[in-house]
């Protein structure tokens, strides 16, 4: 029998606010335990939550970017469960009336095809604290710095049909939240997390199979691998005459397998009810219009513009628009070079990205700012330096030795364009290689390449290659 895989994802994006969703505590990562947890975060009796404007604003921004309905009135609910890192005994979330409803996102699959994934809802909620278990002699230690950090939980429709589609959707959401500036997307620090609902059904069957929920998928690769494993597990189970049990399963990256979290099963009874401490969020048209004004150019629009306006290749554009800072960098370089966006793209995708990756430097902290790279490219354009030696100039710029002109001067990398000087070198090379000259004149055109190489070598790479070719042809004819 052939099986169809059905996947839906729940993504938790930590919203990029300075303070928590319901208190004035800092959300900065990495502080000493419990130094950023106040009375509200600790769940002390008698305190009340006060909602952070920016958490609402960032959620609305996401909703507008995916063409969703922004609820004019949405309601916070209490999700009740018992766990030591949740001091109140409930998480403030949204249940029946989430702030963002019914949107969709177009994803571009590795084979170039497009697919639209429905987004059921995105709702605001608070994060829980962290439980630590190491070096505590059989006890657990609770750090509540993270408690109350604003999250946007983005719930997709069960629209994905393969692990690759799921990973592509996750990447596309990741790219979008970073473009929007609503989440830093840092997966190591847990700012962007993902759970997957996975089921299989016989090809052609309408009804969905029983699903398992996979937790702990904190990288794009893990999402793909965990789902691959889980699909195989479910198919094996069904083909052996068994049944899939609806349960939560934890992905273990070290062993590349998923396993049941039995303790979670009975607890799935959250007894949601509207939180009496918080009034409904009421949004008027003016607020929504104001947020709409703040929307940046989105990745797909930027991609289309780069292809149309700059005439770049699609694979280069995909690299350039992957992150907004890289796209901005490219546009700044292209703006300096003016009439040669392809040259700018080649250098940003090639030398610059290579240096950034090699040294683990972020584009925002590039050691060669865009206008400096633009000036180097102008020196290639006006013939001051050859494309080949420009790479040497770039490395020196990267090492902090100065600007393009300065380095070309100090290192003597200026291209030789003086015809007389080049002719002199050509003459010397021809005189020293009489045998090859004869071969060329006997009709072996390939020897020309040999001569070009010799002349370039004799000029230490500085002779203008185009002129070298011209002069050689003239002298050999």
């Amino acid at each position, binding site marked *: 029998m052939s099986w169809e895989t059905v996947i839906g994802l729940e993504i938790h994006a930590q919203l990029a606010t300075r303070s928590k969703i319901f208190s004035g505590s*800092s959300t900065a990562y990495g502080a000493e335990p419990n130094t950023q947890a106040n009375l509200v975060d600790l769940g002390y009796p008698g305190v009340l939550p*006060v909602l952070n404007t920016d*958490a609402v604003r960032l959620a609305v921004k996401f909703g507008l970017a995916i063409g969703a309905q922004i609820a004019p009135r949405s309601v916070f609910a209490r999700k009740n469960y018992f766990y030591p890192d949740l001091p109140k005994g409930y998480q403030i979330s949204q249940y029946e009336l989430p702030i963002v409803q019914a949107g969709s996102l177009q994803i571009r699959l590795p084979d170039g095809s497009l697919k639209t994934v429905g987004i059921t809802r995105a709702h605001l909620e608070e994060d829980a604290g962290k439980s630590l278990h190491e070096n505590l002699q059989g006890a657990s230690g609770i750090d509540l710095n993270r408690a109350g950090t604003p999250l946007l939980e983005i719930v997709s429709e069960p629209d994905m049909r393969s692990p690759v589609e799921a990973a592509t959707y996750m990447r596309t959401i990741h790219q979008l939240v970073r473009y929007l500036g609503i989440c830093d997307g840092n997966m190591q620090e847990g700012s962007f997390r993902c759970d997957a609902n996975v089921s299989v059904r016989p090809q052609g069957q309408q009804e969905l199979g029983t699903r398992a929920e996979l937790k702990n998928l904190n990288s794009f690769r893990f999402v793909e691998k965990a789902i691959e494993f889980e699909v195989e597990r479910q198919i094996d189970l069904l083909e052996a005459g068994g049944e899939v049990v609806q349960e939560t399963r934890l992905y273990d990256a070290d062993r590349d397998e998923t396993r049941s979290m039995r303790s979670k099963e009975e607890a799935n009874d959250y*007894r949601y009810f*509207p939180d009496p401490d918080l009034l409904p969020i009421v949004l008027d048209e003016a607020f929504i219009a104001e947020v709409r004004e703040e929307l940046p150019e989105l990745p797909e629009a930027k991609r289309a513009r780069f292809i149309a306006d700059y005439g770049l290749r699609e694979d280069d554009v995909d690299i350039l628009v992957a992150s907004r800072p890289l796209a901005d960098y490219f546009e700044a370089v292209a703006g300096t070079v003016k009439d040669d966006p392809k040259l700018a793209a080649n250098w940003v995708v090639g030398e610059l990205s290579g240096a950034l990756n090699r040294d683990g430097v972020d584009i925002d902290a590039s050691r060669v700012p865009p206008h400096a790279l633009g000036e180097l490219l102008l020196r290639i354009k006006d013939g001051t330096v050859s494309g080949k030696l420009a790479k040497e100039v770039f490395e020196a710029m990267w090492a902090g030795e100065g600007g393009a002109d300065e380095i070309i001067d100090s290192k003597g990398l200026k291209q030789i364009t003086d015809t007389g000087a080049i002719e002199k070198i050509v003459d010397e090379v021809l005189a020293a290689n009489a045998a090859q000259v004869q071969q060329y004149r006997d009709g072996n055109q390939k020897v020309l390449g040999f001569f070009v190489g010799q002349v370039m070598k004799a000029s230490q790479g500085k002779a203008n290659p185009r002129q070298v070719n011209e002069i050689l042809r003239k002298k050999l004819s």
Partner: protein
Amino acid sequence: MSLSRQDVEHIAHLARLKVSDDELDEYVDKLSRIIDLVAQLSSVNTDGVTPMAHPLDIGQRLRPDEVTESDQRELYQENAPDVVHGLYRVPKVIE
């Protein structure tokens, strides 16, 4: 009785409350009576009435995104029964 012993046991477990067998009988009785009392509301026809989660006809006030709190860990942790390395120490929560 609108609640069974299993219902009450289940709720007690979710809240991590330990309830003895004797107490259980009492809770089944008392909680059932509360639920039955509230259930009388179900006899009212509410067709076309918007559910009201809150009694006030206004929206949530918002506060600006500013950090207004300073570190008061020492003060707050005076109330905790057990603290280690700045962490609240609790019985182990994973198997």
